[in-house]
Each structure stands twice: as structure tokens, then as C-alpha cells.
């Protein structure tokens, strides 16, 4: 597939927003149950505001993906069958509930915890919707796996808790270290899952072949022309157009910059109490995630490509 920058930005930005919110709520819940001390209100308000901002940016990126953004409201109609439609409903619902949670926290309302619980439901729902958009396409074998959902969830939590660690260093230093531990934990588990995905995808054998594509049962079938010389939507949308070497480089780049490097930086930043190092940890991990998402799309091999192997 051709990786679209709009979708890469959407999925990574809302992932951070979701993970950040889960971190806030975990602390809020722990404090409410008297398990831990309560940080300053500003921590929750700023965190919720940041989460809403990231969702807004993600939403903006998603509009950029549409050919007809002025009709985007129509995308909420087919929620009975379409995971994309469900995401279109759940994303604003999550954003609105996080906004309400931030507002309730700011005014000290006892309802904040309950609104937050609703936001948690929307948050998990959003992870499921985003993952299922890709995992439900069964002939895109690289995506059609529960690992796709788990990966979206873990990477969202890893980057979100990473950002929460930075936020804590600024507003609630007492929580920097515990959040750092969680961020590193999520990053580590995410690496294991992503490596499992890579191993699974490397072993995949395509179910469709040129023989099943044109229905000629001969071991040697070679395309000679695709019916157009100057390319078509089919050649632009479904091919990344990069060399295998480039793909390999991106893979190693995200394996290094989305996982071990930010984990080490988060640890250093939290133990040394260095805000700049924590900021660098988040920026590096987000950049790594952009590469991860690019690779996620580029690696998916669409069976329609079997019809576009030779120009003429």
C-alpha cells in the first residue's frame, strides 16, 4: 500500500492522546481510591487539554485524507457495518468526553471520575475501531490479525505514557518515576508484539496468486501489459514505490527509535529529573512511530497488485 501521511498522522496522534488520557485517569483513579497521593489539578487539566489538542490535530489530518471533506458528516451513518464509520463516531465522542473530564477536573466536580470512566470506554473503543479498520480486511494478510489491534493499543499507551511522564516532570514531579516505569513497560511489551508481527508477516505466504487472479492454472504466467501506459489509481494507491532496501532501513529505524532509544531516554530523564531529556524521549519515540506506521502501510501487499506487475 502507498502510505498516506494523513492516515499516519491520524493514527499516531490519536494514539498518543489516548495513551495520555489513560495515564491521567489511572493516576486519578489511584488517588481517588487513596492508593496514591493526588497530584495538582493542573496536571489533569493540562493533560486533558493536551489530549484534546492531539485528537483535534488527528481529526484535522483525517479530513486531509478525504477527497470530499465537506461531506465528512456522512461518514457517521454506516456504523452498523463499517469500522471506519464507527471510528468517525467514537473519535469525537472520546475527544468530547476528555474535554468534559478536563473541565470537571478543573472545577473540582465529583463527576470527573465518572466522566473519565466514560472516556475510558470510548478510548478502548477507539483503539478497537482504529485497529479493526485494518484488521478486518482479510485479504490484506499483513493486517488481518489480532496483533494489529494489540499493536495500536500498546504503541498508543507507550507514547501516551511517555508524554505523561514529561507532563508529570513539569507539573507533578512525584509521579515522573512511576509514569516512566509504565512508559518503559508499555514500550517493551510493544516491542515484543511488533517483533512478533514482523516475524508473522515475514512468514506469510500470499493466498492469492496470479493464477487465481486470472484463473489460468499454469505454473508460469507472466503479465505483459496492464491496459494503461501512464499508470492509474491502481498503480498509485497500492504501491509504495520504494526499494526493498529502503523498506528495510525504515524497519530498523523504527525498531531503534520507537523502542530502545526512547526507553533509555525516559529512564535517564526520570532518574536525572531532566525535562529536556524527557521531551527528547517523546519526540524521538513519536518520530519512530511515524516510521513504524509508514512501514505498517508499505508492508501490506494488496492482492490487486497481482494485476499491475508490468506496464507494457
Amino acid at each position, binding site marked *: 500500500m502507498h502510505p498516506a501521511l494523513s492516515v499516519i498522522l491520524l493514527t499516531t496522534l490519536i494514539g498518543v492522546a489516548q495513551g495520555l488520557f489513560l495515564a491521567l485517569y489511572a493516576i486519578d483513579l489511584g488517588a481517588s481510591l487513596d492508593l496514591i497521593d493526588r497530584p495538582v489539578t493542573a496536571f489533569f487539566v493540562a493533560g486533558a487539554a493536551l489530549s484534546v489538542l492531539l485528537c483535534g490535530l488527528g481529526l484535522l489530518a483525517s479530513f486531509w485524507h478525504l477527497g470530499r471533506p465537506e*461531506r465528512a458528516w*456522512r461518514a457517521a451513518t*454506516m456504523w452498523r457495518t*463499517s469500522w471506519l464509520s464507527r471510528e468517525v463516531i467514537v473519535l469525537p465522542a472520546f475527544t468530547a468526553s476528555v474535554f468534559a473530564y478536563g473541565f470537571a477536573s478543573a472545577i473540582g466536580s465529583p463527576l470527573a471520575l465518572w466522566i473519565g470512566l466514560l472516556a475510558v470506554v470510548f478510548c478502548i473503543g477507539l483503539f478497537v475501531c482504529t485497529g479493526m479498520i485494518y484488521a478486518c*480486511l482479510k485479504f490484506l494478510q499483513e493486517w488481518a490479525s489480532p496483533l494489529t489491534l494489540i499493536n495500536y493499543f500498546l504503541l498508543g499507551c507507550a507514547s501516551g505514557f511517555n508524554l505523561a511522564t514529561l507532563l508529570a516532570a513539569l507539573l507533578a514531579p512525584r509521579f515522573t518515576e512511576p509514569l516512566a516505569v509504565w512508559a518503559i513497560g508499555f514500550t517493551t511489551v510493544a516491542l515484543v508484539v511488533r517483533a512478533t508481527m514482523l516475524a508473522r508477516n515475514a512468514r506469510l505466504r500470499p493466498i492469492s496468486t496470479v493464477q487465481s487472479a486470472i484463473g489460468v492454472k*499454469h505454473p508460469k504466467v507472466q503479465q505483459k501489459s496492464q491496459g*494503461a501506459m501512464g499508470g492509474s489509481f491502481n498503480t498509485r*494507491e497500492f504501491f509504495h514505490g520504494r526499494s526493498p532496501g529502503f523498506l528495510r532501513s525504515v524497519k530498523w529505524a523504527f525498531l531503534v527509535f520507537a523502542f530502545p532509544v526512547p526507553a533509555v531516554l525516559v529512564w535517564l530523564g526520570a532518574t536525572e529529573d531532566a525535562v529536556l531529556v524527557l521531551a527528547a524521549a517523546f519526540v524521538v519515540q513519536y518520530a519512530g512511530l511515524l516510521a513504524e506506521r509508514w512501514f505498517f502501510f508499505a508492508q501490506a501487499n494488496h492482492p490487486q497488485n497481482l494485476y499491475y506487475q508490468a506496464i507494457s
Partner: protein
Amino acid sequence: MTQLALVIDLNVCVGCHACVTSCKEWNTSGVAGFLSDENPYDKDPTGTFFNRVQTYEVGEFPCTETVHFPKSCLHCEDPPCVPVCPTGASYKRKEDGIVLVDYDKCIGCKYCAWACPYGAREIDEKQQVMKKCTLCVDRIYDQAIPEAQRKPACVTACPTNARLYGDIHDENSEVSVAIRERGGYALMPEWGTQPANHYLPRRKGVVAIDADQVSRIDSPLNVDGKVPGTLAALIAEAQAMADRPAGGR
């Protein structure tokens, strides 16, 4: 239930692209608006088409065979592109099984194109909506044109009659008989999409015939009690009867 479809005979398709140009001509001039092109007379021309003819080489030189392969939307009976559409712009008509896109509802998210394993959908780069074969829905029901022409434009254009059109749920239709009796098959059956369009396979020029198929078992020249002979034996027998002197009886 009706399921309109095309049955394409790969044995007679000569790869002339008449179906492609006829399709483009009809569908770029229709009520639904043009099918946009970019650089049509320049370097790297590209544009929106509902139908393409591709060419494949089967076998290894010198034992090769050229297969021309027309490719358009297969109007699947279980179309994976329809349920994924977030707006309901993609739909399958109950009355005739045609899969269509409502260009006024499409938001151009391209998700349906991702969900089609055949690559049958192409976005119109100017109008930014998804387009695909409509089976000439604006033509096949048009009472203003002669009944013989109420077929998809590609079907009427085909000079070798490689494209058959009809209802595959009607067991006596031309297309159903062709699928049944000439080995019609579906593309990528592994995904369970149940394409309505079928393809008829290439056939070899060699015909296997048994000896008893060329001799007439019920020949009036056969003599009772004798096993029916080969054609040569029958001819010899007939020759012998003709050679008998006249009035010898």
C-alpha cells in the same frame, strides 16, 4: 432474485480494447458526469476507467499462449467494498445485484478501494469520488433506445462477441448456460466474494475423438448381425454394393 453480470470468453477475446473505449465513451458522456483524465495527450497520460484489458503470457517459450484479460468490477454477490463504506455511498442494488457508488454521498476516503481484492475501483482525481463499472445502469433500462441495444456499452462494442451479458440467477439465460456448459469460473474464489462476473477459459485447438464417434452406429447400410464397422469399412461396404452388376438380383 436477479443478478446481472458479464461473462467474458477468454477463448475469443482478441485484446482489441474496443470494450475499453466504448465503456469510456458511454460513461464519460452520461448523466453521472465525465470520467476525468490527466495529460490525455501528453507525457504520462492517466485517467479514470471502468474497464481495462490486460495481457498475460502463459507458458514458457516456445510453448506460450497469449491471454487477453478484460477486467472490470465483478459485481460480487458478497461485495467486500459495500459494508466498509462509512457513508453508504457504495451499495448493492437488491433488484438486479449491480454494485454502485452514489457520487453525491461519496467522501473519497478510498476505503472501499482498499477493501476490493480485484482493484476494480478507481478514484476520479478531479471529482474526488470513487468510480467503478455501473454495468451501464443508465443504458440497460433505457426505454428510449432499441431493445437490442439495452446492454452494457462494452458488450455491444465487442467485435468477437467475447462478452455475454445477462442474469446469472436465471438458469436458462445465455450467461448461465455458458457458465455451466463452458467451464465458467470466478476470479480469486479464495476470498468468498462470489463474483457475479465469470470468465470462460481458453480452449485448446485439439479435439479428442474416439473412433466410434465418427462412425454411424445406426447407419442404414449396416447389415443386421454384423458389428457396425469403422467409417472406412462402411464406405468399402457401400462401394461393394454399388459395384454389384445391375440386374444381378
